[in-house]
């Protein structure tokens, strides 16, 4: 047995060999019979709560960037001893959630405030009192603000998606500088997804509850089996009902393993595949013309000379730039888009002497370049399969493209990848149904929150692109920073992470880190503050990556000297003279954030999780649905300037960006960086595994028994060429750095591509971000880590 099968090899039976499993598995393989309808009773059975009369039970939820499953937290004699699924919630937590129980009492937990006594990163610490820690931090903050300006204090926080830690840090930073701040620009996840969604449909949507309704599910650069583990039950329900599953990913992921079809493109070429599909759908007239004419701007006219939409302001002085024109087939004239009776979908026309053409015709012209041979050549995927996929997609309604915060949009032209997916869904009318559309991961920002983070108006003095943190700190752009206040975030999550670490160590006079564990960021801090665990404080999980309001109750006092983020900021505020801005309890802050919804901490405690669509007060759209599924774009509008899906985006046109989808080669490829490619001929993609959410859970002993160390996946042929065998320690390197890890050699990855898991801390030596491209997408400053070239060699 090899690693990961059985961590206790001493107790593994030699009788159970892989050979016998293979034999057995083959015997099972031929006997597949599907039945439906049995799972409903299972759900009922699962709803039975545990009976443990001695335990007090509290409500909570898991709060990193995951699905936020609700928990019952069982407390016995003042100690948290047990976690169980909340029978009032529709999901069951995954192993990451359960591991919190061990993490709570982990020997690795930060127990006390510490100050650095050795060199930065040397690991020499002295335990100090909270008073000394808070006094020191307050003093350093005040010094920086008074001498250099509040903008020289950089506040950074990780993706904790419950409300309190972020709101409290935000409020503290805002009041501290009276609004003066250094802002972040873009991010390390889904900016391309968010930007293209905003540009084309108005906002971000998630179909995460509706997987089971699709007839076809294309998981594109996405691995829901590990990143939406609790929602897999709906995928499985769909599969039982006959839903077909296609995975497009250079890696044979856990989701690919469940799929009917696995297509493995070259990283960064996904848009070319989508363009090929668009061409097939247009050429073979597989599109939904009624939908396109009525709910998209594909019939809108574009002025040939400028490439811009024809607007009323182009034709009449004082005309409304939000009125667009379409060609009316009845009158053979250009008519306002709001007034047309029989619009033309395609064609070239003349309006007031201007040559114009419909958006659809221009899209068709772009797509025409992506014939089977071209798409095959660009993507490395058999173009005939892409043709078949396009036909199946157009014939299967509802069909969902599940992209999540896809790895395929974490590339140089990520926005256009997402645009290609929305275009596919718009062509086929895959909107307004359950199980259709393009699945993002967002419920965030759709609830009417009350902002408690910025009592002062924001006054941004400079900004730092999220992907460029290392470069900006190293080059002291936009100005030298004096203090970095770093809360609950892995240092190794930033691309080019070695440079981030080096810049922090050498260029930042004072670093304070607040966390549960001695993270790779805490390791280089001057003061480390032990934060309370999520079950040791009050918090609110508001619709973020699911669509529920959930209370996270304080189930026990913080262990050792850990303190809640709210307590820490309140104590610092008192020392800095603005304690009056931190004059509420955690539950009072929660009630204030919720005030527009009519919900309170206490009401959520009594009711359990509340679905955001169950009352018009709970969402910004003011809509109410009696029960799931919620259908996006049935009662909710496309909030684009035209009120339609904008295949030619007004937002992008206004930003002087290419307003419509097209494929462009990514930054680090053989084609675009031939010299670099000679040195580093392998493309690196990051993988998510079910051990982590970003860098969280690294210290959970139970999880590390399953995933003891990082590894690199490499194709057999690439390994053979380099004399690498399975299990060898190898170096993965490029000009940004070198990491050292174990090789897993197989054929479950495209030749020419290697993959390392995201989330390993810098001190494991296997942190993928050391190698990651720190450029960003042009429009939205999203990261491009999957446009990275590397080489692999035997260590």
């Amino acid at each position, binding site marked *: 047995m090899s690693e990961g099968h*059985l961590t206790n090899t001493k*107790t593994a039976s030699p009788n159970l060999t892989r050979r016998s499993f*293979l034999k057995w598995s083959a015997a099972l393989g031929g006997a597949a019979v599907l039945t439906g309808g*049995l799972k409903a*009773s299972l759900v009922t059975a699962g709803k039975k709560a545990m009976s443990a009369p001695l335990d007090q039970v509290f409500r909570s939820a898991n709060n990193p960037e995951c699905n936020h499953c609700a928990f019952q937290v069982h407390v016995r004699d003042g100690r948290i001893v047990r976690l169980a699924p909340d029978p009032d919630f529709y999901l069951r937590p995954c192993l990451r959630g359960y591991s919190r*129980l061990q993490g709570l009492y982990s020997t690795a937990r930060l127990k006390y405030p510490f100050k650095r006594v050795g060199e930065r990163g040397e690991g020499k610490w002295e335990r100090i009192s909270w008073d000394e820690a808070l006094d020191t931090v307050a003093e350093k903050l005040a010094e920086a603000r008074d001498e250099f300006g509040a903008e020289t204090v950089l506040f950074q926080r990780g993706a904790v998606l419950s409300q309190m830690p972020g709101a409290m840090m935000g409020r503290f930073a805002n009041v501290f500088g009276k609004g003066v701040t250094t802002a972040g620009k873009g991010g390390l996840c889904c900016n391309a997804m968010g930007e293209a969604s905003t540009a084309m449909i108005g906002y971000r949507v998630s179909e995460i509850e509706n997987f089971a309704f699709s007839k076809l599910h294309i998981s594109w650069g996405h691995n829901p089996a590990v990143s939406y583990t609790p929602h897999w039950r709906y995928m499985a329900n769909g599969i039982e009902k006959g839903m077909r599953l296609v995975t497009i990913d250079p890696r*044979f992921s856990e989701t690919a393993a469940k799929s009917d079809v696995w297509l493995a493109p070259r990283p960064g070429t996904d848009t070319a595949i989508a363009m090929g599909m668009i061409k097939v759908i247009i050429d073979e007239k597989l599109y939904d013309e009624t939908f396109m004419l009525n709910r998209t701007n594909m019939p809108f006219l574009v002025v040939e000379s400028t490439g811009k939409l024809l607007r009323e302001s182009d034709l009449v002085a004082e005309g409304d730039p939000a009125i667009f024109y379409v060609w009316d087939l009845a009158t053979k004239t250009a008519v306002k888009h709001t007034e047309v009776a029989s619009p033309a979908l395609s064609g070239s026309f003349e309006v007031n002497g201007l040559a114009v053409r419909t958006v659809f015709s221009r899209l068709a012209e772009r797509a025409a370049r992506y014939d089977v041979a071209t798409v095959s050549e660009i993507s490395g995927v058999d173009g005939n399969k892409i043709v078949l996929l396009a036909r199946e997609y157009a014939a299967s309604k509802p069909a969902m493209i599940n992209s999540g915060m896809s790895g395929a949009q974490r590339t140089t032209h990520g926005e256009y990848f997402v645009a290609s997916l929305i275009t596919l869904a718009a062509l086929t009318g895959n909107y307004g149904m359950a199980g259709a559309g393009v699945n993002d991961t967002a419920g965030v920002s759709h609830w009417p929150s009350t902002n408690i983070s910025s009592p002062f108006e924001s006054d941004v003095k400079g900004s730092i692109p999220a992907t460029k943190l290392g470069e900006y700190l190293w080059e002291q752009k936009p100005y030298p920073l004096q203090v970095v206040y770093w809360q609950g975030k892995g240092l190794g999550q930033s691309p080019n992470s070695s440079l981030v670490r080096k810049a922090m160590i050498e260029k930042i006079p004072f670093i304070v880190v607040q966390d549960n564990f001695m993270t790779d960021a805490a390791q280089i801090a001057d003061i480390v503050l032990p934060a309370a665990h999520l079950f040791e404080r009050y918090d609110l999980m508001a619709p973020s990556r699911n669509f529920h309001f959930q209370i996270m109750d304080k189930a026990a006092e913080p262990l050792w000297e850990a303190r809640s983020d709210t307590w820490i900021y309140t104590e610092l505020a008192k020392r800095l003279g603005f304690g009056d801005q931190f004059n509420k309890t955690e539950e009072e802050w929660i009630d204030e954030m919720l005030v527009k919804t009519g919900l309170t901490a206490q009401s959520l405690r009594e009711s359990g999780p509340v679905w955001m669509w169950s009352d018009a007060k709970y969402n910004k759209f003011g809509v109410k649905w009696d029960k799931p599924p919620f259908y996006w774009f049935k009662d909710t509008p496309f909030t684009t300037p035209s009120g339609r899906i904008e295949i030619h985006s007004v937002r992008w046109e206004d930003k002087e960006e290419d307003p419509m989808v097209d494929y462009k080669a990514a930054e680090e490829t053989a084609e675009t960086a031939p010299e670099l490619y000679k040195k580093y001929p392998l493309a690196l993609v990051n993988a998510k595994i079910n051990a982590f959410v970003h860098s969280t859970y690294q210290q959970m002993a139970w999880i590390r028994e399953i995933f003891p160390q990082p590894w690199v996946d490499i194709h057999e042929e690439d390994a053979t060429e380099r004399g690498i065998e399975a299990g060898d320690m190898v170096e993965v390197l490029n000009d940004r750095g070198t990491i050292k890890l174990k090789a897993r050699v197989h054929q479950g990855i495209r030749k020419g591509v290697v993959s390392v898991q995201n989330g390993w801390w810098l001190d494991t030596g296997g942190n993928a971000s050391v190698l990651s491209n720190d450029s960003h997408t042009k429009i939205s400053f999203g990261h491009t880590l999957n446009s990275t070239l590397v080489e692999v060699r035997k260590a």
Partner: protein
Amino acid sequence: MMANKRLGLVIDLDRCIGCWTCATACKAENGVALGNWWNRILNVEGAATGSPGMVAGEVKMTNLPVQCMHCENAPCVKACPVGATYKREDGIVMQDYNKCIGCRMCMAACPYGAKVFNWGEPQTGVSLAGVKLGNPAVPERPRHVAEKCTFCVERVDQGELPACVAACPALTRTFGDLNDPNSEVSILIRERNGSQLLPEFGTDPNIYYLPARRHHPIVEKTPSYGG
């Protein structure tokens, strides 16, 4: 007279994504020590968790959760020289930790590698002395005893489901009476061609697996492509 119950578990490999939640929930519920798993997920084709392997030229990664099979014809019960391993009337195979002498004969006898051994004082990875995680009714095990999945007998006796069944996020697991032809488990086994692991050993396990569905590649003749 009604026949005895035969408590059993059906695991649907079509739904299982190998996430290890069952295994982790088991660890939490039963206070299983670091280094030991009563319940674990094997990867049939690949070399490790999350690694694909090849079968007949095809890339595959099939998850196989394995725990005590609560065999009708349990080799561990026969192998135990002191009667510490025994079978309850409802089919659950149990371990009496007071009787166990740590000889590990049961472990050698089990073809599923389902039993684990406490080589030292069990360490749970919890730094606060006196905090016992999980179900308070589950007895603590000393060093030098063998232990394994009990189908969460303490829960089952209260009419609850085993922790792994209640925890599985993908609803992969169904628990019930195999002797009742109308139980969900019996129906699933019948309708979905459930099978036992390593039947050639003659152990007659009370855990059944439902096969993973066959995949349908993109080919021109697939009717749903409209061609």
